[in-house]
């Protein structure tokens, strides 16, 4: 090279190599891992599931876009995948018969209050999808607890209940009408559109673990705590309490433990923090289901433990290499 020729080099702080990993890549991996659950919801609830999913995603993207414009933030972060995930997750936690305008309101609340009010991606304390759902549950309790059977079920619609509702309000154990585990596993039961099929959720969980998009401690902690808690009561009185396996497969436990509680932004960053967080969620689910007024407690348990995350991060600092015990 001619020495007089000036060549401009970039200077920057080390390191000068980077892995090809980015937030959109992580987010779209989560979207892919949700595909089995989306597929199951469409299989069991057909058009209703499609309508709810589309409405919810559009609502979340719309709200995110408007607020990004108002806050004068780069609009391209609309496509980082996080708003789409919130949309999908919110949809999956809604009952199939919910009117679409309510779905839309849920999406606005989820993104507007659950996420952007805190400063957008990375700054929110509570899981946005669950904030949206909590609002709907409180504001529209009847619509949110009206259940319809899957298109494969041949039952009387007027007395239809979810497996957990059946357990709580209809003395299902004594009557012998407890939902069979096989149906819970495949998903041919009533409930929120995305929570019914255990197998679809488990496949998603395996994808997330394989791609290292979630901390294994969180699902492990939640599921084992709930298993032990409900297991103890089942052993004491199997005529009153359902088996721990039933509790793991019924309701929103798998959806919550695999996709909701593991949200990176709203879960602790330290290993010990994650254990405490997960065990807390598992315990609260158990307490609400067995002794609370509601048949299901996954949503409130996760939101409740979300609130502890900053504190957990603060007090569970991992010991660094060579740290001397004090």
């Amino acid at each position, binding site marked *: 090279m001619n020495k007089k020729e000036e060549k401009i080099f970039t200077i920057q702080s080390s390191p000068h190599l980077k892995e090809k990993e980015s937030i959109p890549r992580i987010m779209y991996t989560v979207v892919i891992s949700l595909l089995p659950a989306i597929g199951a919801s469409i299989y069991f609830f057909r058009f209703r599931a499609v309508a709810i999913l589309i409405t919810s995603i559009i609502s979340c993207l719309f709200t995110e876009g408007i607020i990004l414009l108002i806050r004068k933030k780069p609009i391209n972060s609309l496509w980082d995948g996080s708003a789409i995930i919130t949309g999908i997750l919110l949809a999956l936690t809604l009952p199939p018969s919910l009117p679409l305008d309510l779905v839309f309101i849920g999406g606005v609340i989820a993104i507007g209050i659950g996420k952007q009010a805190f400063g957008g991606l*990375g700054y929110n304390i509570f899981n946005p999808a669950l904030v949206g759902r909590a609002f709907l549950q409180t504001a529209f309790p009847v619509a949110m607890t009206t259940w319809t059977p899957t298109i494969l079920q041949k039952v009387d619609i007027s007395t239809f209940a979810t497996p957990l509702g059946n357990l709580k309000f209809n003395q299902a154990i004594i009557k012998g009408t407890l939902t069979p585990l096989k149906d819970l596993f495949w998903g041919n039961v009533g409930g929120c559109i995305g929570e019914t099929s255990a197998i679809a959720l488990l496949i998603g969980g395996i994808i997330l673990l394989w791609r290292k998009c979630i901390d294994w401690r969180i699902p492990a902690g939640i599921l084992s705590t709930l298993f032990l808690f409900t297991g103890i009561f089942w052993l004491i009185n199997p005529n009153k309490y359902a088996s721990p396996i039933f509790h793991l497969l019924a309701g929103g436990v798998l959806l919550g433990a695999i996709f909701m509680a593991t949200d990176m932004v709203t879960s602790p960053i330290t290993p010990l923090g994650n254990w405490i967080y997960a065990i807390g969620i598992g315990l609260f689910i158990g307490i609400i289901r067995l002794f609370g007024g509601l048949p299901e407690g996954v949503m409130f348990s996760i939101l409740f433990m979300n609130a502890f995350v900053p504190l957990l991060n603060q007090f569970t600092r991992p010991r660094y290499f060579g740290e001397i015990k004090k």
Partner: protein
Amino acid sequence: MWNNLRKRSFRGGIHVEDHKEQTESQPIEILNPGEKVVIPLHQHFGTPAEPLVKKGDEVKVGQKIGEGKARFSAHVHSSVSGIVKAVDYYNHPSGQFVLSVIIENDGEYAPFEESKEIRDPFSLSPQQIIEKVREAGIVGMGGAAFPTAIKLNPPPDKPIDTIIINGCECEPFLNADNRLMIEYPGDILKGAQLIKIATGAKKIIIGIEDNKPDAIKIMEAHSKSFPFTEVIPLKTKYPQGAEKNLIFALLRRKVPAGGLPFDVGVVVQNVATAKAIWEAVSRGKPLYERVVTVTGPGIVNPKNILVRIGTLIQELIDFCDGLKEDTKMIIIGGPMMGVAQWSLDVPVIKATSGIIALTSIPPDEERPCIRCGRCSEHCPMGLVPTQLMRLTKFGKLIEADKWGILNCVECGCCEFVCPANIPLVHWIRTGKSKVTLLKKQK
């Protein structure tokens, strides 16, 4: 015996494409400098050396031109013979301007004094060896440039039992140490023996990453003629060559936070440093030359070159037939910890292990931290980089100290894996210097 079942390693770290294939089988070539040689008086960790020459003085090869007077300092020697043109501030690989001796090279390479061959260097006393190492201005040649004489002289209450010779060269692209082990195994092993004598250690371990099978084979074959000397292959994982991680991988000993290898009875020396020690003690040769790997996708013909300290990197690049058109970045050192250069008018110093020309720059579009925890998972020091970044940002320096910010070795693993492209190392460096300042003020 579980060590044999599982490759020796440490917790954390990253797997990087090593990019070593370009130069791993390139024999070391010799390049003499051009007319101008620039020798900085600050090439080591500690206080700069003070100049012993002035404009117009005549100097010879190996003549001491800078004296390291302070405890943490090192002497500097001329690498050529010629006339001192100036003693002035000049570009330095660190990016700063450093007082340097600028010499007009006469091309004669006349030695300052006849080499004094010592018949039996192994019969010297520890003090004699340390004195010769100090006189030769030897510093750690792996990158940190810590004055070697200080490392060989541990406090009396910290007995040393093991010498580790660091042949990991875990930085991608570099092959300088690899080639030294292949071409000069004898000198490295003899240097290691001298370190053993100087520190009173009992055994020597040579740690080499398993992506250098030739070096492992050759070092193993040669180490058989030395007592208590063993070659141990290590898993290829960055930063395997970081002192504390290397000690842990080989000996399962943890250097206490804030401590030094002395504290667990170990002295670690790089292979290039071991060779320099042998040359200094057996022949009185000061440290005025070293092997540099010039490589990367932007270099036309990558090479390993033995150059004299003070040679400008423009000359090394020209010797490799220049840069490709699309070169975007020049780095001195490795790509993970090296310093990006704005100019090619920069001299090679004692710690320059490589010159790397990159044709692509990592993306700098920063997004908010989503607390994925990857930085923490990969930190070889068990820190939580994102937390350190946040504490530094908000000025919570006492908290940052509690979270161990001073233990960061700036290896760059956290930033390498960060999906949000946050300049974590930059933040932590800022935090470290602020915390250090705060502690000094107390």
